[in-house]
């Protein structure tokens, strides 16, 4: 089957032209064009934050684009809402099935397919028959009377597919459908997807597993930083070429130079694991003055590892050594007492307390050190806060200003100040510059480098490849909850991406 370009005379099922979408100051899509032909499996790939989710949410009607046009079956659509998308024959199957756990399979299917009328009579027998029919069609051995909470993840996914089929969808979006499937289930899903394709359905298939894309897709579109790097038939490309397009340009020289002197060992992990957090067998060393970048795809276990180190979900296997002593960390209090600081990912929810003055925010984690008798000394607090505000160049009217008066970048600095006030030995940063404007980003990078130079050991979690490459002395790549590779400072984006995707390095770009 050759569908390399739009086939003359054939109307694409879906056509996006120059679609843009911004969230606040962050632009998620910068003019992406995309088309889906009938009877095609079109793979969509890209690194974290490349814009895949935004794109499928636009097609599903969950987001509306800022500009650009959407054509479905050749007709221009302006107000695409989730229900309008459904009526136009678009169905979505998300990585996490979105079914109602307390309702039965038949009820869930009915909810998707039946028109919503508040006082209509419910035809229970019809509902059940329809469900049986659909489940049989996809060869799923599931009783329609089971409550969804009793189904396994793959079974729930099959129900989602049944819904998509039942709605006579012509466009089906699949977001990492195989993430929770076994090999056998995956084979069955592929067979089903191929049947759908042969019936003329168009499928947008998102996956991080490149080998799957080569096994099933007809064409592939690579997104990077909210832009499309083009669409290619899979027969005309290879994994290495795709990775190259995912990572794009090499790192710019915007980053402060590495000039740290490595000091004594601060952190040693030996076979560290935590079942609840999905992290296993991590062995890693970190020295004073060193910045180790921790990267990997979404779900690879980066934040989970940080949470294990900080005692939020304590480790159940392996050992942690801090400053040469074996330690057990079972709570954030333990971690703080041992000199670990953790700047969380979601600073609006877990970082700065928006209703508190900056001075209170800055001392919040250091009460034991600053006020050993639990008696607050407001002048000490004020002085300390002012010192940090000056030191980190926080743009604010003063230490008494509330947290919610600051911009994102400045909130992040206050969050950082809170942890520096604890005088830590090990600083864990989780996406320290996510959603921050470029100027503040640069400043935060300089601060991080300076802290390392002053002897702090820094573990920096980041999805931002240029940031990881530009800032890290070494790069630890996680995949599936465990260490996939530890790469030196001089490594390339290509190597990092290959390790993240679990591909053997072919010596390309090294």
């Amino acid at each position, binding site marked *: 089957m050759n569908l390399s370009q739009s086939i003359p005379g054939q109307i694409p099922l879906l056509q996006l032209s120059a679609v843009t979408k911004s969230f606040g100051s962050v632009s998620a899509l910068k003019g992406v064009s995309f088309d889906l032909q009938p009877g095609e499996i079109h793979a969509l790939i890209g690194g974290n934050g490349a814009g895949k989710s935004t794109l499928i949410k636009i097609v599903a009607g969950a987001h509306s684009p800022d500009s650009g046009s959407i054509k479905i079956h050749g007709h221009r659509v302006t107000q695409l809402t989730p229900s309008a998308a459904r009526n136009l024959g678009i169905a979505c199957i998300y990585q996490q099935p979105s079914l109602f756990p307390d309702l039965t399979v038949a009820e869930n299917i009915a909810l998707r397919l039946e028109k919503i009328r508040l006082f209509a009579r419910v035809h229970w027998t019809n509902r059940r028959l329809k469900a049986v029919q659909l489940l049989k069609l996809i060869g799923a051995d599931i009783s329609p009377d089971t409550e969804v909470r009793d189904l396994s993840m793959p079974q729930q996914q099959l129900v989602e597919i049944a819904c998509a089929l039942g709605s006579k969808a012509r466009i089906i979006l699949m977001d990492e459908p195989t993430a929770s499937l076994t090999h056998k289930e995956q084979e069955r899903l592929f067979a089903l997807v191929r049947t759908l394709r042969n019936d003329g359905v168009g499928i947008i298939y998102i996956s991080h597993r490149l080998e799957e894309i080569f096994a099933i897709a007809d064409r592939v579109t690579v997104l990077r930083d909210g832009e499309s790097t083009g669409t290619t038939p899979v027969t005309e490309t290879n994994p290495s070429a795709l990775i190259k397009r995912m990572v794009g340009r090499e790192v710019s020289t915007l980053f402060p130079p590495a000039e740290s002197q490595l000091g004594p060992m601060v952190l040693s992990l030996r076979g560290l694991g935590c079942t609840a957090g999905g992290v296993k067998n991590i062995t890693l060393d970190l020295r004073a003055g060193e910045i180790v970048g921790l990267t990997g795809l979404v779900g690879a276990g980066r934040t989970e590892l940080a949470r294990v180190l*900080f005692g939020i979900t304590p480790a159940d296997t392996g050992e942690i050594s801090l400053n040469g002593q074996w330690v057990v960390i079972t709570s*954030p209090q333990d971690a*703080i007492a041992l000199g670990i600081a953790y700047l969380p990912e979601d600073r609006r929810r877990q970082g700065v*307390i928006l*209703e*508190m003055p900056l001075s209170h925010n800055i001392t919040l984690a250091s009460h034991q050190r600053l006020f050993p008798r*639990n008696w*607050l000394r407001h002048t000490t607090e004020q002085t300390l806060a002012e010192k940090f505000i000056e030191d980190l160049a926080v743009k604010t009217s003063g230490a008494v200003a509330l947290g919610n008066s600051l911009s994102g970048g400045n909130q992040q600095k206050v969050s950082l100040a809170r942890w520096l006030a604890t005088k830590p030995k090990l600083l864990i940063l989780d996406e320290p510059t996510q959603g921050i404007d470029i100027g503040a980003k640069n400043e935060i990078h300089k601060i991080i480098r300076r802290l390392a130079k002053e002897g702090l050991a820094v573990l920096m979690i980041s999805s931002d490849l240029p940031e990881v490459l530009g800032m890290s002395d070494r790069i630890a790549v996680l995949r599936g909850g465990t260490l996939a590779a530890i790469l030196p400072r001089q490594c390339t984006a290509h190597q990092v991406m290959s390790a993240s995707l679990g591909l053997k390095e072919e010596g390309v770009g090294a």
Partner: protein
Amino acid sequence: MLAVFAPNFFEPQPLLSRLASAAPKLVLACGVALVIIIRQIDISIGSLFAVCGTTAGLAAAADWPWPLALLISVGVGILGGAINGLLVAQLRLPSIVITLATMVILREGVRLKQQGVFINLPEGSQWFGLPMVLGQLTLCTLAVGLLLIMTLLLKHFSAGRFIYAVGSDEEAARLAGIRPRLVTFLVFITMGALTGIAALLNLVQSPQVDPNSGRGLELEAIAAVVVGGVAVSGGRGRLWGVFLGFLLLICTSPALTYLGVKPYWEKVIQGAVILLAVVADGLRTKKAK
């Protein structure tokens, strides 16, 4: 307005009596303020108030030493607060449901035990054995003293800071090394202890203990707190505001009487005031987002 329509409202003696009889409410309001700042609620305090008063009264009537009866009241209050606190903090259950249940259990427990019978206190226990005016002054001083202590706690102790932090953003507080569950538990215990003290301040004002006392007290305390500017969404509020809210509310009911409004309206107005304060806070938070 009050001064114009009811000139005798501000005469010293009735004013002192009124303040003394309202003193327990101020003590309760201090506790409720802490509970609301950590974004919880306690509606069992009226019942707990009756339980504390009744147990202390029974002890005193059985000729137990007077200081012991005082301790018993506070002890029972702490126990009640600990039960609420444990259920809310440890099981993460909504405090409105937990304290609704304890409210009913405690209230009906007292009814079962006393069948509505008043307890006669021994001679000379009224007003701590002092002359009435002096006793009333002592009561007011104690209540204001407790207010000051709680203000100090909130403003000058780490514990107070942690209370605000937990109420504003529990997850952020936890990641900053604060233990939100412990803070919640301790706040409920404080609430219980203050309820016990409030019951005592009520006990010494009459020669008898009414086992039905404390009905609707939770409403009055919550009203004083929210009128005093404590945000029902947690994390914000000061005790001097609560004090003003308290003064305003104890003035409303006599003011209504003087103005010739039927007393039935009092609770309606209190409820409306709470609703108004909550709506105002809701609008403010919505605007902030």
